Structure formats: structure tokens, C-alpha cells
């Protein structure tokens, strides 16, 4: 335990309560196997009684050196590794990587491929938000939403399985478009899913939104202001819940998002309740996009003309997409050979987790678990 105390030394602590009874500080170690830390995250809490004075996150338990591996694989061989980072939203990882390399190769995926990509990414966003809602509600004590959300998420995983054979780490896209043509009945399944899940989202809201105890446990908990979000580089639903109307799908559209009309839900207070509302609204917006995309899916090739051996010209580019957790960016440096010289992944969970300390300071221990839940972090992406 001594080395953790040393590492906490730098923490400038919140003001301590000079109580009459002079309660002593407590250093508690939460994780890395704690049930509510969504994977292997270890949080060292410095407590004054029940109040949190300061926290420090110890990460790296799931570090697999993805960026080092990238330098020893060819471009298309690295594709499956990308799904293993944020294993909950694997499809968006794949989309980001493929589009980055396509940008390097200066080629454009055909419209049909783009439509398929948008449909699958938005389905994946709903699945990721559902998983988030289930586990987040479970941490705060509501047992039932977990079963509802996982039952509905199962439908999405079935569509993935039918389309590309895998449920979670799908490896659905290839550089230049999609490899698999949509199975017949794909549109029917997706439409059926949309109609199936639309009332289900209202069902989640019925359970939680006006539930007094849920409101009391989430309103005013883990507040972060818009300025802090920008300074800490926090993106995604957390940023939008603090009132910043910014979404890469609108700001810098990629993969023909510009053709679909959808809004970006934002709320002002930047607390756990607002992040919950933003993500619920985002699920509905994703459904709108999917419905439009399924209607207008054009015929045509699904793969652009890509050389058999991908050797992009020398140069570097940065391409980022709106993953369910925030801005997921790929900075690829190519030296003209078949293997990337350097692939840097900018993971949203890693940067959002950094905001945990400022959001939790002064709150109670029970809120630390609620805030970790609301940040929606996936440790595969944090540790890479």
C-alpha cells in the first residue's frame, strides 16, 4: 500500500472538514476487480469519512500494445485489432480506421457501402447505449432495466451475426467499403428492429426518468461545466450534456451522414441525469437515421477499386468519427510501405476518464460509482 500513498502525494486535496471529532482520512482502493468499475480500472479514493477528497485512476491493466502491433501488420491485417479496443462499439472503431486509410489512399467508398456502414454504426451506437444504460442502472441499484436493455440489444446482435458472422467484434468493414453484400431480408430485419425498439426506449424512460429515487441519485451528481469539458478534452454525450451542441457527424460529416437529417440532443446542467437524457435522445435519433438510411439504400457496388496490396503514399492524416463514447480519432503516418509507420488512436474513454477526478471531488463514495457509470468508459479503449 505504501507506493499508492506516495503516488497520491501530488493530489492537491479538496478542503478537509475541520470536524470537532477530527475524523482521519482514509485511502480506499476501489478495483481493479470491483464490480462497478466496468472492467479493470483501479481508483484510489482519498476519503474524509464519506466525502471524496481526491481520486487517482490507475489504468493499464488491459494494455495490449495495439499501436505497436499496428507497426508490424499491413493495413488490412490491422483491421480486426481495431474492433478489440472498444469492444462494445466495435463497428464504429472499424469505420473510423477504414475511413482513415481510405483518406490516405484518397479513395471514396461507394454510396451503397456508405449506407450499409451508417446503418451498422448507428445500430452499434444503440447497442452501446443500451449496454451502458443496463450496467449504469444496475450500479445505482435498479435491477430491472438491465434485463430489458440486454433483451433488446440481443436483436441488434442477431442482425450483426446474420450480416457478418460475429456479434461483438464484427470486423464488418474493409478498407474501401464492405466485404459482404447484405443478406436478403436485411432491410426487413432492420425495419422490424426499429419498430420493435422504438416503444422499448420509452419503456426504459418510464422505468427511470420520473423515478424519484433515480432522479435523486443522478440529479446534481458529477457535474461538469462546458468550459471544463472543453479544457479537459471531454467529448461525446458528456460534452453535449453540458450544453455544447457539437457532434462530428454534423460538424465534419463523414460516410454520407450529411444526407440524413437528425438533431443533436443537448442539455444544460451537465450532471448524471442530463447525460442519461442525452443518451436516451441519441438512441431515438439513431433510429431516425437508420430508418432514413434503410429507405434510401441504393444499388451498386459495395467495394471501391482498391489495389490488392495497399501501399498508401508517404504522408500523414488524422481522421476522427463520432463513436458512442465521444471523438474517436486515428492519426496514421505512412512511409509508402505496406505497413503503417505509426498509428495513433485517440480514444474517447481515455480522455473522458481523466475528468473523473474533477467531477467526483466533494461527492460521496456512492456517487463515484454513479459517475464512473455515467462516463460510459470501456477499459479496452482506455488501455489500448
Amino acid at each position, binding site marked *: 500500500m505504501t507506493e499508492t500513498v506516495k503516488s497520491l502525494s501530488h493530489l492537491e486535496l479538496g478542503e478537509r*472538514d475541520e*470536524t*470537532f*471529532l477530527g475524523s482521519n482520512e482514509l485511502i480506499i482502493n476501489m478495483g481493479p476487480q470491483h464490480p462497478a468499475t466496468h472492467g479493470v480500472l483501479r481508483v484510489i479514493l482519498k476519503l474524509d469519512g464519506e466525502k471524496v477528497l481526491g481520486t487517482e485512476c490507475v489504468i493499464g491493466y488491459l494494455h495490449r500494445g495495439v499501436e505497436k502491433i499496428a507497426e508490424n501488420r499491413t493495413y488490412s491485417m490491422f483491421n480486426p485489432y481495431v474492433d478489440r479496443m472498444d469492444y462494445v462499439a466495435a463497428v464504429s472503431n472499424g469505420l473510423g480506421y477504414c475511413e482513415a486509410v481510405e483518406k490516405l489512399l484518397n479513395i471514396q467508398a461507394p454510396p451503397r457501402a456508405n449506407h450499409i456502414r451508417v446503418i451498422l454504426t448507428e445500430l452499434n451506437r444503440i447497442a452501446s447505449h443500451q449496454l451502458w444504460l443496463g450496467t449504469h442502472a444496475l450500479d445505482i441499484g435498479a435491477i430491472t432495466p438491465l434485463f430489458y436493455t440486454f433483451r433488446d440489444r440481443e436483436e441488434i446482435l442477431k442482425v450483426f451475426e446474420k450480416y457478418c458472422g460475429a456479434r461483438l467484434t464484427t470486423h464488418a468493414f474493409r478498407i474501401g467499403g464492405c466485404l459482404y453484400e447484405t443478406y436478403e431480408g436485411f432491410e426487413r430485419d432492420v425495419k422490424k428492429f426499429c419498430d420493435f425498439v422504438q416503444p422499448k426506449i420509452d419503456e426504459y424512460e418510464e422505468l427511470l426518468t420520473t423515478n424519484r429515487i433515480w432522479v435523486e441519485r443522478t440529479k446534481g451528481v458529477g457535474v461538469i461545466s462546458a468550459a471544463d469539458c472543453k479544457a479537459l478534452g471531454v467529448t461525446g454525450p458528456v460534452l453535449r450534456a453540458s450544453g455544447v451542441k457539437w457532434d462530428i457527424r454534423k460538424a465534419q460529416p463523414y460516410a454520407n451522414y450529411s444526407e440524413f437529417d437528425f438533431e443533436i440532443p443537448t442539455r444544460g446542467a451537465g450532471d448524471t441525469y442530463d447525460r442519461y437524457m442525452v443518451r436516451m435522445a441519441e438512441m431515438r435519433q439513431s433510429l431516425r437515421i437508420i430508418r432514413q438510411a434503410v429507405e434510401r439504400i441504393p444499388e451498386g457496388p459495395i467495394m471501391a477499386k482498391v489495389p490488392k496490396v495497399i501501399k498508401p503514399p508517404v504522408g500523414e492524416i488524422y481522421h476522427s468519427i463520432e463513436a458512442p463514447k465521444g471523438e474517436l480519432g486515428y492519426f496514421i503516418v505512412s512511409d509508402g510501405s505496406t505497413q503503417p509507420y505509426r498509428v495513433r488512436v485517440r480514444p474517447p474513454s481515455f480522455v473522458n476518464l481523466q475528468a473523473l477526478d474533477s467531477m467526483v471531488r466533494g461527492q460521496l463514495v456512492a456517487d463515484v460509482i454513479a459517475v464512473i457509470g455515467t462516463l460510459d468508459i470501456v477499459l479496452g479503449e482506455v488501455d489500448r
Partner: protein
Amino acid sequence: MQPVATTFFFYFLSALALVGGVLVITRRNAVHSALALIVTLLALAGIYLMLYAPFVAGVQIILYAGGIMVLFLFVIMLVNLERAEKEKQFNKQWLVAIVASGALGLLFVKVFTESKTIPGLLQKPLAELAETSNTQQVGLALYGNYMLAFEIASLLLLVAIVGAVVMAKKKI
């Protein structure tokens, strides 16, 4: 309600109370003595029942055993016990102990013998307090002629509560 085998219950309960009392002072571990104290209090509640005072017995269980003893245990747990256990338990002052207990014993004997001669000492013979309306009688007495004492006592408690809050409150 005709009394049932009172003599047996009387001796059993008073023995229980005595043993509990002794245990309270001889136990080295604070929690054990607290439990022993609870046993004595419950035994007392039993004896009250035998004196046809069910209301007092009920209150005894709720207040003493259920309320105060829980707070005793709270305090015992929060204050760390190691220090208390190391200190010497008995201060070996036998002489003072004998004198004090002797005086107390004399007092009891005096009161008991006198009560038969001076009528007013134990006002009413026990059985008279009708068993069914016991609570009503207590209520009437409390709010009737002992109203003032009742109010003063509640004021005192209020002061104690305010004091406790002031002490424990972190930031006023």
C-alpha cells in the same frame, strides 16, 4: 388474567437480573457487558409485567433494550476498544465497597419494614391498579397531576438533543 406460576417466574427473572448485573461489571469485553445489561433490562421488564404494569414493561423494552442499548453499542464500537481493555479493571478498594453496599442494604431493609407501619409509603396495594386500563391510568397520571414534571423532563431532553447535534455537526 389469572397469574400463572408466578413464584417460579419471579425467582427465575430476579435470578436472571442478578446474574446479568454481575456479568455487566465483571466482563472484560465491553460488548459482552452491554449484552449482559440488555439481559438484565429484559428481566426487569418481565418483573414489571408480574407487577401488573404492562405499559411500563413495554416502554422498558422499547426504550431501554431497543433504543438506549443500541446507542450504547454504537458508542462502544466507534470508540476503539484496545485502550479500554488494557487498563486495570478493578481498583481493589474493598473497604469502601463493603461500607457502601452495607449502607445501601440497611436502607432497603429499613424501607421495607417501615412500609407496613406507615400507610402512605406504598400508596395503593398492588393488585388494585386494574390490569386492563393500566395504560390509561399511566396516561392520566402523566398528563394529569404530573404534567409539570413531564414538561420539565421533555425540556431537559430537548437541551440534550441540541447539545448532541452541536457537538457532532461538522460545519454549522
